[in-house]
């Protein structure tokens, strides 16, 4: 039994590690198609990672140990998060170690280390990127927490698996609170993962870039880890979204090969859909001025709070 | 008996010797010696009273009971420490050329005379003699206030003389009325009719209508000397312009004695009137003093004026407490009188040397005491903190008791008192801090300042804040029973 649980846990992590680059690749493909471009291969992210790992690392002369350690920390944090979020099964040993709030904390840790590393070398762009990243972060984090709070008010817990179980097993009802929070979550996801309209992963234009600016000093394996970590972050956010809003299909019963066998394809389906959706949003929306980013996130925060208010006013929606 | 005679005779002898003696050189030491002898006699007397209880001496003309005995001890003690302090202080004044040797002689003899008058006022049993000695106290200090002969000091002295003279005249009328009432009750055996003990015995038979009038006159009269608002106008000027040792004894002792006289009268009047009128008057004066003083503190430029107003404030507090009456409040008032006179005189000692170092009494001229002469600086700082009622100093203890009693007895007064205390704190501390700390501009003094008195006083105040010795507490409680009335 224990071994099975452990195996499932490892499987989930492995799936996450594999699926994260694929998800990004898929996202980019969709974007290319939507903008009538020839799409790159789905495996392009993998190739890039391999290439980077092979290269020799170049470090700035005044880079401190913190600079070298950061990629590993960020990557490790993201992997742990991936292990905690119930993407395949809700009955894993690690999920007890951190509820949704702790999860947000983990993301914050990653962000802080990323920013510190960016400030380490002391170039203009590094600090600029760190500042902007922290700005986005300190606005997005409360919004994300609010989203989770709404869900936890509905299901009386802040543990993700419990939430998704509760939402999955209850009779299907239209819950305006959840709808509002879903919107909020989407906005947060875009912001946190450096997607348009907040940031543009495909540009190095100093006026606009956030995430890329922080990675300018990184190269080779360090860069690879950073990239992988950010792909994992996107994947994790997606999984959180699934757990909160489309929880069906996550193996909630006893862990068995059957449940997992069913869970994997469902997850793939969800990811495909989500990727398409994100791509659509990114294509139709334009990059915001960096100064407008706060307003964007304030909107997200507002939506989440509205959700909470609605929840408080209407109470639990009537279940037939 | 013998202790009393010694206690009164020593300063009298001192006055004459220092006035006509030939020892110019050692006059300051001689002054201290006489004060020390007085102190010894006073302590002997105190011990006697502790041992044998209240004493009626010299044909009942003198009476020492728990109420005045600790004031006697306190007066003698502060008199001694002030003499010690004035020894180097006056030498420095001469060195700075502010006074001449001849005036120093006047100073010393008048100082002893002043001591005599106050001790007499405290110990006498005869309300008439009480008046006489208080008037004499005024007269003996007037020339001390004008010792420097500067225009300002002359003005201060003149105001002091006129206001206190007029005030004390009212007190005389009050005394007459008291005698008038007493004669009816005691029969016209002239001399004894003004003896407090006798009056106290028959106070319930004294004619209320007369005593009420008498109390008003006595209150206005002695209240003027105690510096109760609105009779206080002389106080700040006199304190600021006289030599510092005199400021110290005026503020530390004379005010106490005047308040003592008022309380003695209050006991009689309340016994006869059976109405809250006297208490109300005292409370009114008290509140007025506290409020006005705490506000006027904000206008002060001169360091000695500053602390003079603080004296008004604290006398007001004590008066208010006496007005509230009751065991606890009276206890607190007595404690407050004690700690105030100790602390305030200590502050004036420190202030005096500070002013000498800066060559000015204006506060913006005094800077960074603690850097050049830490003892003076810390003395001033600690004394100020003590007078502002910060624990663990004794002032906090008495204020704690007064405030908590007021919460129960006179809640209406609480906002005024607290606001006043807050204002006073901000006003005084803000100014003292910038005098004690910061860059310094002080000069060295020709003679080493005597700071033993400062720290001796502060140590006592500290002790009283943390631990009131049982026998002292016993005195206070006995006195409180004596005065407290209800």
């Amino acid at each position: 039994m224990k071994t099975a649980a452990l195996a499932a846990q490892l499987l989930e992590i492995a799936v996450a590690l594999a699926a994260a680059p694929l998800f990004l690749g898929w996202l980019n493909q969709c974007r290319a198609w939507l903008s009538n471009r020839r799409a790159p291969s789905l495996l392009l992210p993998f190739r890039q990672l391999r290439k980077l790992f092979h290269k020799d690392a170049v470090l700035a002369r005044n880079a401190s140990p913190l600079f070298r350690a950061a990629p590993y920390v960020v990557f490790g944090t993201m992997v742990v998060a991936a292990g905690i979020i119930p993407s395949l099964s809700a009955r894993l040993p690690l999920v007890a170690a951190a509820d949704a709030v702790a999860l947000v904390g983990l993301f914050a840790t990653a962000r802080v280390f990323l920013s510190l590393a960016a400030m380490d070398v002391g170039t203009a762009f590094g600090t600029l990127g760190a500042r902007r990243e922290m700005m986005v972060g300190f606005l997005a984090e409360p919004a994300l927490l609010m989203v989770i709070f709404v869900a936890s008010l509905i299901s009386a817990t802040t543990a993700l698996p419990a939430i998704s179980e509760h939402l999955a097993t209850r009779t299907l009802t239209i819950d305006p609170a959840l709808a509002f929070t879903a919107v909020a979550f989407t906005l947060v996801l875009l912001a946190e993962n450096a997607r348009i309209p907040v940031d543009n992963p495909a540009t190095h234009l100093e006026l606009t870039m956030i995430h890329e600016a922080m990675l300018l000093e990184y190269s080779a394996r360090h860069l690879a880890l950073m990239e992988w970590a950010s792909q994992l972050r996107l994947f994790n956010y997606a999984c959180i979204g699934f757990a909160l809003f489309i929880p069906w299909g996550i193996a909630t019963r006893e862990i068995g090969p059957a449940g997992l066998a069913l869970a994997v394809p469902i997850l793939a389906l969800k990811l495909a859909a989500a990727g398409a959706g994100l791509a659509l949003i990114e294509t139709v929306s334009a990059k915001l001025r960096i100064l407008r980013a706060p307003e964007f996130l304030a909107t997200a925060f507002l939506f989440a709070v509205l959700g909470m208010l609605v929840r408080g006013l209407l109470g639990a929606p009537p279940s037939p | 008996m013998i202790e009393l005679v010694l206690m009164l005779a020593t300063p009298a002898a001192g006055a004459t010797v220092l006035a006509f003696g030939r020892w110019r050189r050692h006059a300051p030491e001689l002054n201290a010696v006489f004060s020390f002898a007085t102190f010894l006699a006073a302590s002997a007397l105190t011990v006697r009273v502790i041992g044998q209880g209240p004493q009626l001496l010299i044909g009942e003309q003198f009476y020492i009971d728990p109420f005045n005995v600790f004031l006697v001890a306190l007066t003698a003690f502060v008199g001694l420490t002030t003499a010690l302090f004035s020894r180097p202080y006056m030498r420095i004044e001469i060195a700075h050329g502010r006074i001449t040797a001849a005036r120093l002689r006047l100073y010393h003899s008048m100082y002893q005379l002043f001591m005599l008058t106050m001790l007499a006022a405290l110990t006498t049993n005869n309300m008439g003699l009480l008046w006489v000695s208080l008037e004499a106290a005024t007269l003996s200090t007037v020339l001390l206030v004008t010792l420097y002969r500067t225009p300002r000091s002359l003005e201060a002295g003149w105001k002091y003389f006129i206001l206190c003279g007029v005030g004390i005249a009212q007190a005389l009328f009050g005394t007459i009325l008291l005698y008038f009432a007493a004669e009816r009750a005691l029969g016209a055996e002239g001399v004894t009719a003004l003896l407090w003990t006798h009056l106290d015995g028959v106070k319930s038979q004294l004619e209320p209508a007369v005593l009420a009038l008498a109390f008003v006159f006595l209150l206005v009269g002695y209240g003027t000397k105690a510096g109760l608002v609105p009779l206080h106008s002389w106080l700040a000027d006199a304190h600021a312009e006289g030599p510092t040792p005199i400021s110290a004894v005026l503020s530390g002792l004379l005010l106490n004695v005047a308040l003592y006289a008022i309380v003695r009268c209050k006991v009689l009047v309340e016994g006869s009137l059976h109405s809250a009128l006297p208490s109300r008057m005292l409370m009114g004066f008290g509140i007025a003093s506290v409020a006005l003083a705490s506000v006027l503190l904000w206008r002060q430029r001169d360091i000695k004026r500053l602390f003079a107003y603080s004296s008004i404030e604290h006398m007001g507090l004590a008066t208010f407490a006496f007005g509230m009456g009751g065991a606890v409040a009276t206890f607190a008032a007595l404690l407050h009188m004690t700690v105030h006179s100790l602390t305030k005189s200590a502050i004036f000692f420190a202030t005096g040397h500070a002013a000498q170092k800066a060559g000015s009494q204006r506060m913006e001229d005094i800077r960074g005491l603690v850097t050049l002469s830490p003892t003076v600086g810390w003395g001033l700082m600690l004394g100020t903190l003590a007078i502002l009622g910060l624990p663990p100093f004794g002032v906090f203890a008495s204020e704690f008791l007064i405030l908590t009693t007021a919460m129960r007895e006179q809640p209406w007064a609480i906002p005024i008192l607290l606001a006043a205390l807050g204002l006073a704190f901000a006003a005084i501390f803000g100014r003292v801090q910038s005098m004690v700390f910061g860059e310094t501009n002080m000069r060295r003094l020709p003679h080493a300042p005597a700071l033993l008195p400062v720290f001796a006083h502060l140590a006592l105040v500290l002790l009283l804040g943390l631990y009131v010795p049982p026998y002292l507490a016993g005195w206070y409680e006995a006195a409180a029973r004596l005065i407290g009335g209800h």
Partner: protein
Amino acid sequence: MTDPLLPSAAIHVAIDRQLLDACAALQLLIAFAMLAQRRIVSLVNLLAAQGAVLAAATLLLAWRTGQGHLYVSGVLTLALKVAFLPWLLHRLIDRLEVRFDAEPALNVSGNLLAGLLVVVFAFGLAQPITHLASTAMRNAIGIALGVVLLAFLMMITRRKAISQVIGFLSMENGLFFGAMSATYGMPMVVELGVALDVLVAMLVLGVFFFQIREQFDSLDLHHLESLGERR
């Protein structure tokens, strides 16, 4: 208590009473006169007159009641208040060359009006207690109080140091008169003490005058208004 005058003949009683009451009236009159008087020299004379009336009343009482200490205080008053103090004042006035000084701005009519009110007030105060007195001139208590308050008023209105002092002394007279009328004077010890104080006070004042004079070469009080709480 019985009136000590009763045993003697009724006719005398009347005369004594009349005389004493006359003294009281005179006191009041003189007080008013001082309130209205501008010139310092005349003020001194008025003071002397007041002292004289006081002394007369005291001696009269002493003679009638035969209380020994009243003689003493009568003589004391005579010596101090009629002889010595006026002489001293005159001397000072000469030495200080203020013989022709006068109160510049003195609103006489206003003062007299205020004085009138004060006296009425004083009588009102004394009224309830006079009947308690056992003395020959109990009605004078109110007058004495009035004199004291009038002197107070005078001190308030004067702008010259000397006239203020004169006001102070006339207040002392009023007090003695009060003591006399209420209780045939105070106990001897006190009387002596008070007299001593007054004497010393005068000497101190003498010193004062010269100090002030040498500082400001004038005895106007407006020189003495620099202290106080103004910026």
